[in-house]
């Protein structure tokens, strides 16, 4: 079980990074549209 913990942490971190990237992308697109 202990072997899976780093894997799940990595997966969560990976998903969080993607979520951040996608939200940042949509924010920048909205910003450019407003300009």
């Amino acid at each position: 079980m202990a072997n899976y913990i780093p894997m799940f942490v990595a997966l969560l971190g990976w998903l969080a990074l993607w979520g951040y990237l996608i939200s940042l992308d949509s924010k920048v697109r909205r910003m450019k549209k407003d300009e």
Partner: protein
Amino acid sequence: MWWKVLILVVMAWVCIGAWIFPPPTPVRENPEVFRIIYFHFPMAIGTVVAFGTAMFFSIRYLSTRDLKYDLREVSSARLGIIFCILAAISGSIFAKNTWGSYWNWDPRETSIFMLLLVYAAYFALRSAVSDPDQKANLSAVYSLFGFVATIFFIFIMPRIMPGLHPGSPKPTGVSEGSIITFSFKTAIVLIPSVLGHVGLFFWINKLAVDIAESSKELSDG
């Protein structure tokens, strides 16, 4: 927009493929750790692409003297450093499980360390100059030489000096069996991973440049 969706799909495929396909090596004490190669190698390629892009924009800056290219250059170099650090960290984990130590001063490990120093000096140079034009001029010329150093450290030095990594002329005993078998199953994960990491670099770089440009416009009024 479509290319961002494509990167997302490719990287999702890489994550799934890296888990479900066999690790790219025949027999090792701990073959599972070899799955990290699906991420470690593409990160190193991403480093080269990032520093190459920085050099491309430094040439554009030197030929046009337009500061927007300086912004693109520094953003690429910054991401190059991040990719380089990630490649070093993933490589260290790999090295611990394969060669017994996190850091072995193998020629490729030494070269990545030197590369980090070269680009750390690039940012030190930028922070030491306050005039924007002078800063852009100096860092553009430095970036040109920095990329020449990248080519030497990544593609030449590890191939002429004996070391642990695959590709060195006289691999020492400890690297026996660490040769990666490049089978079809490895290729269908590793090649998309390289393309996905390069795509990810261009996406993040574009975002960083867009944000920096709009905050510059705001501060300029």
